[in-house]
Protein backbone atom coordinates (compact mmCIF):
# COMPACT_ATOMS: atom_id res chain seq x y z
CA UNK A 1 0.00 0.00 0.00
CA UNK A 2 0.96 3.62 -0.36
CA UNK A 3 0.55 5.51 2.88
CA UNK A 4 0.45 8.78 0.95
CA UNK A 5 -2.48 7.50 -1.17
CA UNK A 6 -4.36 6.97 2.09
CA UNK A 7 -3.67 10.57 3.04
CA UNK A 8 -4.98 11.79 -0.32
CA UNK A 9 -8.20 9.81 0.11
CA UNK A 10 -8.68 10.75 3.78
CA UNK A 11 -7.97 14.45 3.25
CA UNK A 12 -11.00 16.55 4.13
CA UNK A 13 -10.26 18.57 1.00
CA UNK A 14 -10.65 15.55 -1.30
CA UNK A 15 -13.26 17.01 -3.67
CA UNK A 16 -16.09 14.54 -3.21
CA UNK A 17 -18.86 16.73 -1.80
CA UNK A 18 -18.47 16.07 1.92
CA UNK A 19 -18.19 19.76 2.78
CA UNK A 20 -21.93 20.28 2.18
CA UNK A 21 -23.00 17.63 4.73
CA UNK A 22 -22.98 17.83 8.52
CA UNK A 23 -23.41 14.14 9.36
CA UNK A 24 -26.48 14.95 11.43
CA UNK A 25 -24.77 17.73 13.37
CA UNK A 26 -27.04 20.49 12.06
CA UNK A 27 -30.17 18.69 13.27
CA UNK A 28 -28.49 17.88 16.60
CA UNK A 29 -27.39 21.49 17.11
CA UNK A 30 -30.92 22.76 16.42
CA UNK A 31 -32.37 20.21 18.83
CA UNK A 32 -29.93 21.32 21.53
CA UNK A 33 -28.09 18.01 21.63
CA UNK A 34 -24.79 19.57 20.52
CA UNK A 35 -24.01 22.78 22.36
CA UNK A 36 -20.22 22.72 22.68
CA UNK A 37 -17.12 20.57 22.55
CA UNK A 38 -18.25 18.09 25.24
CA UNK A 39 -21.60 17.30 23.64
CA UNK A 40 -19.96 17.24 20.20
CA UNK A 41 -17.66 14.52 21.51
CA UNK A 42 -20.59 12.51 22.87
CA UNK A 43 -22.44 12.88 19.58
CA UNK A 44 -19.40 11.82 17.56
CA UNK A 45 -18.71 8.83 19.78
CA UNK A 46 -22.28 7.64 19.29
CA UNK A 47 -22.11 8.14 15.55
CA UNK A 48 -18.75 6.41 15.30
CA UNK A 49 -19.94 3.24 17.02
CA UNK A 50 -23.20 3.03 15.04
CA UNK A 51 -23.26 4.60 11.56
CA UNK A 52 -19.44 4.80 11.55
CA UNK A 53 -18.97 1.09 12.25
CA UNK A 54 -21.53 0.13 9.60
CA UNK A 55 -19.89 2.40 7.02
CA UNK A 56 -16.41 1.14 7.87
CA UNK A 57 -17.54 -2.49 7.53
CA UNK A 58 -19.17 -1.86 4.16
CA UNK A 59 -16.04 -0.10 2.92
CA UNK A 60 -13.73 -2.87 4.15
CA UNK A 61 -15.95 -5.55 2.58
CA UNK A 62 -15.83 -3.71 -0.75
CA UNK A 63 -12.03 -3.69 -0.62
CA UNK A 64 -12.10 -7.43 0.06
CA UNK A 65 -14.06 -7.94 -3.15
CA UNK A 66 -17.65 -8.37 -1.96
CA UNK A 67 -20.24 -7.70 -4.67
CA UNK A 68 -20.93 -3.92 -4.72
CA UNK A 69 -24.62 -4.44 -5.54
CA UNK A 70 -25.06 -6.75 -2.54
CA UNK A 71 -23.22 -4.28 -0.33
CA UNK A 72 -25.38 -1.45 -1.61
CA UNK A 73 -28.53 -3.41 -0.75
CA UNK A 74 -27.04 -4.15 2.66
CA UNK A 75 -26.42 -0.43 3.15
CA UNK A 76 -30.03 0.33 2.22
CA UNK A 77 -31.23 -2.24 4.74
CA UNK A 78 -29.13 -0.53 7.43
CA UNK A 79 -30.34 2.98 6.59
CA UNK A 80 -34.01 3.35 7.58
CA UNK A 81 -34.21 7.09 6.78
CA UNK A 82 -34.99 7.81 3.10
CA UNK A 83 -33.28 11.20 3.45
CA UNK A 84 -30.07 9.52 4.61
CA UNK A 85 -30.24 7.04 1.74
CA UNK A 86 -30.52 9.93 -0.69
CA UNK A 87 -27.59 11.71 0.96
CA UNK A 88 -25.45 8.54 0.95
CA UNK A 89 -26.10 7.95 -2.75
CA UNK A 90 -25.41 11.57 -3.64
CA UNK A 91 -22.10 11.41 -1.81
CA UNK A 92 -21.37 8.05 -3.40
CA UNK A 93 -21.94 9.50 -6.85
CA UNK A 94 -19.71 12.48 -6.11
CA UNK A 95 -16.97 10.23 -4.76
CA UNK A 96 -17.26 8.01 -7.83
CA UNK A 97 -16.69 11.03 -10.05
CA UNK A 98 -13.72 12.33 -8.08
CA UNK A 99 -12.11 8.91 -7.83
CA UNK A 100 -12.54 8.02 -11.51
CA UNK A 101 -10.56 11.15 -12.29
CA UNK A 102 -7.90 10.55 -9.62
CA UNK A 103 -7.50 6.74 -9.62
CA UNK A 104 -8.92 5.56 -12.96
CA UNK A 105 -10.01 1.93 -12.76
CA UNK A 106 -12.25 -0.49 -14.63
CA UNK A 107 -14.06 -1.34 -11.41
CA UNK A 108 -15.00 2.29 -10.80
CA UNK A 109 -16.15 2.62 -14.42
CA UNK A 110 -18.31 -0.48 -13.95
CA UNK A 111 -19.69 0.94 -10.71
CA UNK A 112 -20.60 4.21 -12.45
CA UNK A 113 -22.44 2.25 -15.15
CA UNK A 114 -24.24 0.05 -12.64
CA UNK A 115 -25.22 3.00 -10.38
CA UNK A 116 -25.49 6.12 -12.56
CA UNK A 117 -27.19 8.00 -9.72
CA UNK A 118 -24.74 6.74 -7.11
CA UNK A 119 -24.19 3.78 -4.80
CA UNK A 120 -23.96 4.21 -1.02
CA UNK A 121 -20.85 6.24 -0.24
CA UNK A 122 -19.09 3.64 1.98
CA UNK A 123 -19.38 1.02 -0.78
CA UNK A 124 -17.86 3.45 -3.27
CA UNK A 125 -15.18 4.33 -0.73
CA UNK A 126 -14.12 0.70 -0.55
CA UNK A 127 -13.85 0.41 -4.33
CA UNK A 128 -11.88 3.64 -4.45
CA UNK A 129 -9.48 2.25 -1.85
CA UNK A 130 -9.07 -0.82 -4.08
CA UNK A 131 -8.34 1.38 -7.07
CA UNK A 132 -5.75 3.25 -5.00
CA UNK A 133 -4.15 -0.08 -3.97
CA UNK A 134 -5.13 0.43 -0.34
CA UNK A 135 -6.01 -2.23 2.24
CA UNK A 136 -9.39 -3.02 3.88
CA UNK A 137 -8.22 -1.44 7.12
CA UNK A 138 -7.36 1.77 5.26
CA UNK A 139 -10.86 2.07 3.83
CA UNK A 140 -12.31 1.27 7.25
CA UNK A 141 -10.20 4.01 8.82
CA UNK A 142 -11.37 6.52 6.21
CA UNK A 143 -15.04 5.66 6.78
CA UNK A 144 -14.75 5.64 10.56
CA UNK A 145 -12.83 8.92 10.62
CA UNK A 146 -15.26 10.60 8.19
CA UNK A 147 -18.12 9.62 10.49
CA UNK A 148 -16.71 11.98 13.13
CA UNK A 149 -14.71 14.55 11.16
CA UNK A 150 -17.79 15.63 9.17
CA UNK A 151 -19.89 16.55 12.23
CA UNK A 152 -16.87 18.17 13.91
CA UNK A 153 -16.08 20.55 11.06
CA UNK A 154 -19.78 21.29 10.54
CA UNK A 155 -20.14 22.19 14.22
CA UNK A 156 -17.29 24.69 13.91
CA UNK A 157 -19.42 26.50 11.32
CA UNK A 158 -22.78 25.99 13.04
CA UNK A 159 -21.81 27.04 16.57
CA UNK A 160 -18.70 29.10 15.78
CA UNK A 161 -17.06 26.53 18.01
CA UNK A 162 -13.34 27.08 18.64
CA UNK A 163 -11.69 25.00 15.88
CA UNK A 164 -8.96 23.89 18.31
CA UNK A 165 -11.62 22.40 20.60
CA UNK A 166 -13.25 20.57 17.69
CA UNK A 167 -9.92 19.15 16.57
CA UNK A 168 -9.17 18.13 20.16
CA UNK A 169 -12.41 16.11 20.11
CA UNK A 170 -11.19 14.25 17.01
CA UNK A 171 -7.81 13.56 18.60
CA UNK A 172 -9.45 12.15 21.74
CA UNK A 173 -11.62 9.90 19.56
CA UNK A 174 -8.64 8.57 17.59
CA UNK A 175 -8.18 5.39 19.68
CA UNK A 176 -11.89 4.63 19.25
CA UNK A 177 -11.59 5.20 15.51
CA UNK A 178 -8.74 2.66 15.40
CA UNK A 179 -10.79 0.10 17.32
CA UNK A 180 -13.84 0.61 15.11
CA UNK A 181 -11.72 0.17 11.99
CA UNK A 182 -10.34 -3.11 13.33
CA UNK A 183 -13.81 -4.37 14.24
CA UNK A 184 -15.02 -3.39 10.79
CA UNK A 185 -12.31 -5.38 9.03
CA UNK A 186 -13.07 -8.41 11.18
CA UNK A 187 -16.76 -8.13 10.31
CA UNK A 188 -15.98 -7.64 6.64
CA UNK A 189 -13.87 -10.81 6.56
CA UNK A 190 -16.78 -12.66 8.17
CA UNK A 191 -19.12 -11.24 5.54
CA UNK A 192 -16.90 -12.59 2.75
CA UNK A 193 -17.39 -16.10 4.19
CA UNK A 194 -20.95 -15.85 5.47
CA UNK A 195 -22.59 -13.20 3.29
CA UNK A 196 -23.44 -9.54 3.84
CA UNK A 197 -25.88 -10.31 6.63
CA UNK A 198 -22.84 -10.80 8.84
CA UNK A 199 -22.04 -7.08 8.58
CA UNK A 200 -22.84 -4.93 11.63
CA UNK A 201 -26.24 -3.25 11.71
CA UNK A 202 -25.69 -0.65 14.42
CA UNK A 203 -28.18 2.18 14.28
CA UNK A 204 -28.71 5.50 16.03
CA UNK A 205 -32.44 6.23 15.88
CA UNK A 206 -31.97 9.94 16.65
CA UNK A 207 -29.65 10.30 13.63
CA UNK A 208 -32.30 8.77 11.41
CA UNK A 209 -35.17 10.79 12.90
CA UNK A 210 -33.09 13.99 12.90
CA UNK A 211 -32.21 13.47 9.23
CA UNK A 212 -35.87 13.17 8.28
CA UNK A 213 -36.77 16.35 10.17
CA UNK A 214 -33.76 18.19 8.73
CA UNK A 215 -34.65 17.27 5.16
CA UNK A 216 -37.96 19.10 5.58
CA UNK A 217 -36.52 22.39 6.88
CA UNK A 218 -36.91 25.37 4.57
CA UNK A 219 -33.74 27.05 5.84
CA UNK A 220 -30.59 25.06 6.50
CA UNK A 221 -26.86 25.36 5.96
CA UNK A 222 -26.06 21.72 5.16
CA UNK A 223 -27.57 19.24 2.75
CA UNK A 224 -27.80 16.59 5.50
Amino acid sequence: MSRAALLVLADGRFPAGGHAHSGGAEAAVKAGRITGAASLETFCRGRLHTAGLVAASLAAAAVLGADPAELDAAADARTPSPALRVAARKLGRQLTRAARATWPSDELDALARRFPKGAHQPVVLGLVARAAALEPVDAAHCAAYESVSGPASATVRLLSLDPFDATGVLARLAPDVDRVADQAVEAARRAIDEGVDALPAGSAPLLEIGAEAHAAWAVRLFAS
Partner: protein
Amino acid sequence: MHLDHSHDGPRAVSADARRPDGSRRALRIGLGGPVGSGKTATVAALCRALREELSLAVVTNDIYTREDADFLLREAVLPPERIAAVETGACPHTAIRDDISANLEAVEDLEDEVGPLDLILVESGGDNLTATFSKGLVDAQIFVIDVAGGDDIPRKGGPGVTTADLLVVNKTDLAPYVGSDLARMAADAKAQRAELPVVLQSLRSESGVREVAAWVRARLAAWTA
Protein backbone atom coordinates in the same frame (compact mmCIF):
# COMPACT_ATOMS: atom_id res chain seq x y z
CA MET B 1 -4.42 -2.09 -8.39
CA HIS B 2 -4.71 0.00 -11.49
CA LEU B 3 -2.13 2.58 -10.61
CA ASP B 4 -0.16 2.13 -13.78
CA HIS B 5 -3.09 1.16 -15.91
CA SER B 6 -3.43 3.39 -18.95
CA HIS B 7 -7.05 4.28 -19.02
CA ASP B 8 -9.03 4.34 -22.24
CA GLY B 9 -12.56 4.55 -20.85
CA PRO B 10 -14.73 7.66 -21.04
CA ARG B 11 -13.39 10.62 -19.08
CA ALA B 12 -15.04 10.88 -15.70
CA VAL B 13 -14.56 14.58 -15.29
CA SER B 14 -16.60 16.92 -17.33
CA ALA B 15 -14.60 19.83 -18.51
CA ASP B 16 -14.49 18.01 -21.85
CA ALA B 17 -16.70 19.48 -24.52
CA ARG B 18 -18.34 16.19 -25.50
CA ARG B 19 -20.92 14.26 -23.54
CA PRO B 20 -20.61 10.45 -23.25
CA ASP B 21 -22.87 10.03 -26.29
CA GLY B 22 -20.54 12.21 -28.39
CA SER B 23 -22.81 15.26 -28.59
CA ARG B 24 -21.50 18.69 -27.62
CA ARG B 25 -22.44 19.66 -24.09
CA ALA B 26 -23.98 23.01 -23.21
CA LEU B 27 -21.82 26.09 -22.72
CA ARG B 28 -21.60 26.78 -18.99
CA ILE B 29 -21.35 30.33 -17.72
CA GLY B 30 -20.87 31.10 -14.02
CA LEU B 31 -22.20 34.20 -12.30
CA GLY B 32 -20.58 35.22 -9.02
CA GLY B 33 -20.36 38.31 -6.87
CA PRO B 34 -21.21 39.78 -3.49
CA VAL B 35 -24.59 39.39 -1.77
CA GLY B 36 -27.28 41.64 -3.20
CA SER B 37 -25.33 42.80 -6.24
CA GLY B 38 -28.02 41.50 -8.61
CA LYS B 39 -26.80 38.08 -9.71
CA THR B 40 -30.24 36.47 -9.57
CA ALA B 41 -31.88 39.47 -11.22
CA THR B 42 -29.27 39.30 -14.01
CA VAL B 43 -29.88 35.55 -14.42
CA ALA B 44 -33.63 36.18 -14.61
CA ALA B 45 -33.16 38.95 -17.18
CA LEU B 46 -30.82 36.75 -19.25
CA CYS B 47 -33.37 33.94 -19.22
CA ARG B 48 -36.08 36.31 -20.47
CA ALA B 49 -33.78 37.70 -23.15
CA LEU B 50 -32.48 34.35 -24.42
CA ARG B 51 -35.14 31.73 -23.80
CA GLU B 52 -36.86 32.16 -27.16
CA GLU B 53 -33.66 31.61 -29.14
CA LEU B 54 -31.79 29.12 -26.94
CA SER B 55 -32.43 25.98 -24.93
CA LEU B 56 -31.20 26.99 -21.48
CA ALA B 57 -31.18 25.96 -17.83
CA VAL B 58 -30.00 27.41 -14.51
CA VAL B 59 -28.18 25.98 -11.47
CA THR B 60 -28.36 28.03 -8.28
CA ASN B 61 -26.04 27.70 -5.28
CA ASP B 62 -27.90 29.17 -2.34
CA ILE B 63 -26.17 29.62 0.98
CA TYR B 64 -28.87 28.36 3.28
CA THR B 65 -32.19 28.23 1.44
CA ARG B 66 -33.70 27.66 -1.97
CA GLU B 67 -34.38 31.40 -2.08
CA ASP B 68 -32.70 32.12 -5.44
CA ALA B 69 -34.15 29.03 -7.12
CA ASP B 70 -37.57 29.93 -5.72
CA PHE B 71 -37.25 33.50 -6.98
CA LEU B 72 -36.57 32.24 -10.50
CA LEU B 73 -39.49 29.82 -10.23
CA ARG B 74 -41.83 32.54 -8.97
CA GLU B 75 -40.77 34.85 -11.75
CA ALA B 76 -41.42 31.94 -14.15
CA VAL B 77 -38.36 32.83 -16.21
CA LEU B 78 -37.99 29.14 -17.10
CA PRO B 79 -40.07 25.99 -16.58
CA PRO B 80 -39.31 24.47 -13.14
CA GLU B 81 -37.55 21.40 -14.56
CA ARG B 82 -34.91 23.73 -16.02
CA ILE B 83 -33.89 25.15 -12.62
CA ALA B 84 -31.78 23.09 -10.20
CA ALA B 85 -30.63 24.12 -6.70
CA VAL B 86 -27.36 22.90 -5.18
CA GLU B 87 -26.88 22.97 -1.40
CA THR B 88 -23.49 24.28 -0.38
CA GLY B 89 -22.93 23.60 3.34
CA ALA B 90 -22.40 27.27 4.25
CA CYS B 91 -19.55 27.62 1.74
CA PRO B 92 -20.80 28.63 -1.71
CA HIS B 93 -17.29 29.35 -2.96
CA THR B 94 -16.23 25.79 -2.11
CA ALA B 95 -19.03 24.38 -4.27
CA ILE B 96 -18.02 26.44 -7.31
CA ARG B 97 -14.25 26.21 -6.98
CA ASP B 98 -12.66 23.67 -4.60
CA ASP B 99 -15.19 20.85 -4.73
CA ILE B 100 -17.37 21.15 -7.82
CA SER B 101 -18.82 17.64 -7.79
CA ALA B 102 -22.36 18.59 -6.74
CA ASN B 103 -22.54 21.32 -9.38
CA LEU B 104 -21.23 19.00 -12.09
CA GLU B 105 -23.94 16.53 -11.17
CA ALA B 106 -26.58 19.25 -11.39
CA VAL B 107 -25.49 20.38 -14.88
CA GLU B 108 -25.25 16.81 -16.13
CA ASP B 109 -28.66 15.90 -14.73
CA LEU B 110 -30.17 18.95 -16.42
CA GLU B 111 -28.66 17.93 -19.75
CA ASP B 112 -29.94 14.37 -19.29
CA GLU B 113 -33.41 15.37 -18.20
CA VAL B 114 -34.31 18.47 -20.24
CA GLY B 115 -31.54 18.49 -22.86
CA PRO B 116 -30.22 19.06 -25.37
CA LEU B 117 -29.21 22.41 -23.92
CA ASP B 118 -27.28 25.27 -25.51
CA LEU B 119 -26.49 27.15 -22.31
CA ILE B 120 -26.41 26.54 -18.56
CA LEU B 121 -26.07 29.49 -16.20
CA VAL B 122 -24.46 28.53 -12.88
CA GLU B 123 -25.18 31.13 -10.23
CA SER B 124 -23.06 31.22 -7.10
CA GLY B 125 -24.52 32.08 -3.73
CA GLY B 126 -23.64 35.64 -2.73
CA ASP B 127 -20.21 35.45 -1.25
CA ASN B 128 -17.10 37.56 -1.26
CA LEU B 129 -14.75 39.29 -3.64
CA THR B 130 -12.43 36.28 -3.83
CA ALA B 131 -15.04 33.85 -5.19
CA THR B 132 -14.16 32.46 -8.60
CA PHE B 133 -15.41 29.44 -10.54
CA SER B 134 -13.32 26.38 -11.33
CA LYS B 135 -12.46 25.87 -14.99
CA GLY B 136 -13.68 22.31 -14.47
CA LEU B 137 -17.19 23.67 -13.88
CA VAL B 138 -17.67 26.66 -16.19
CA ASP B 139 -16.31 27.83 -19.52
CA ALA B 140 -16.56 31.52 -18.68
CA GLN B 141 -17.51 33.59 -15.68
CA ILE B 142 -19.31 36.83 -15.06
CA PHE B 143 -18.63 38.77 -11.86
CA VAL B 144 -21.47 41.04 -10.75
CA ILE B 145 -20.89 43.97 -8.42
CA ASP B 146 -23.13 46.98 -7.90
CA VAL B 147 -22.67 50.70 -7.42
CA ALA B 148 -24.26 50.64 -3.96
CA GLY B 149 -21.66 48.21 -2.61
CA GLY B 150 -19.10 51.01 -2.74
CA ASP B 151 -17.45 52.62 -5.75
CA ASP B 152 -14.01 51.55 -4.48
CA ILE B 153 -14.62 47.84 -5.21
CA PRO B 154 -13.10 47.93 -8.72
CA ARG B 155 -10.05 49.73 -7.33
CA LYS B 156 -9.63 47.13 -4.56
CA GLY B 157 -9.61 44.38 -7.17
CA GLY B 158 -9.54 40.75 -6.02
CA PRO B 159 -9.81 37.62 -8.16
CA GLY B 160 -13.45 38.14 -9.16
CA VAL B 161 -13.05 41.76 -10.26
CA THR B 162 -9.67 41.20 -11.86
CA THR B 163 -9.98 37.86 -13.64
CA ALA B 164 -13.67 37.31 -14.50
CA ASP B 165 -14.30 37.08 -18.23
CA LEU B 166 -16.93 39.80 -17.87
CA LEU B 167 -17.31 42.32 -15.04
CA VAL B 168 -20.80 43.72 -14.61
CA VAL B 169 -21.28 46.90 -12.59
CA ASN B 170 -24.97 46.70 -11.79
CA LYS B 171 -27.64 49.15 -10.58
CA THR B 172 -26.13 52.18 -12.29
CA ASP B 173 -29.50 53.91 -11.79
CA LEU B 174 -28.71 54.09 -8.06
CA ALA B 175 -25.36 55.87 -8.48
CA PRO B 176 -26.63 59.40 -7.83
CA TYR B 177 -28.44 58.26 -4.67
CA VAL B 178 -25.51 56.44 -3.07
CA GLY B 179 -22.81 58.90 -4.14
CA SER B 180 -21.00 56.46 -6.43
CA ASP B 181 -18.81 57.81 -9.19
CA LEU B 182 -19.52 55.68 -12.28
CA ALA B 183 -16.68 57.15 -14.32
CA ARG B 184 -14.25 56.33 -11.54
CA MET B 185 -15.59 52.77 -11.24
CA ALA B 186 -15.21 52.29 -14.99
CA ALA B 187 -11.67 53.69 -15.00
CA ASP B 188 -10.60 51.60 -11.99
CA ALA B 189 -12.08 48.47 -13.57
CA LYS B 190 -10.24 49.18 -16.79
CA ALA B 191 -6.99 49.59 -14.86
CA GLN B 192 -7.50 46.28 -13.03
CA ARG B 193 -8.64 44.28 -16.06
CA ALA B 194 -6.67 45.56 -19.02
CA GLU B 195 -8.45 44.15 -22.09
CA LEU B 196 -11.16 42.18 -20.26
CA PRO B 197 -14.62 43.67 -20.83
CA VAL B 198 -16.75 45.63 -18.34
CA VAL B 199 -20.47 46.32 -18.66
CA LEU B 200 -22.24 49.01 -16.65
CA GLN B 201 -25.93 48.18 -16.52
CA SER B 202 -29.22 49.04 -14.91
CA LEU B 203 -31.84 46.35 -15.25
CA ARG B 204 -34.45 49.10 -14.75
CA SER B 205 -33.34 50.93 -17.85
CA GLU B 206 -34.70 50.24 -21.30
CA SER B 207 -31.52 48.50 -22.48
CA GLY B 208 -31.54 46.30 -19.35
CA VAL B 209 -29.48 43.17 -19.76
CA ARG B 210 -28.90 43.71 -23.51
CA GLU B 211 -25.12 44.12 -23.42
CA VAL B 212 -24.59 41.09 -21.18
CA ALA B 213 -26.89 39.02 -23.37
CA ALA B 214 -24.87 40.05 -26.42
CA TRP B 215 -21.67 38.96 -24.65
CA VAL B 216 -23.28 35.59 -23.84
CA ARG B 217 -24.35 35.16 -27.48
CA ALA B 218 -20.80 35.86 -28.65
CA ARG B 219 -19.44 33.29 -26.17
CA LEU B 220 -21.93 30.75 -27.42
CA ALA B 221 -21.03 31.45 -31.03
CA ALA B 222 -17.36 30.83 -30.19
CA TRP B 223 -18.27 27.65 -28.29
CA THR B 224 -20.26 26.12 -31.12
CA ALA B 225 -17.90 27.32 -33.87
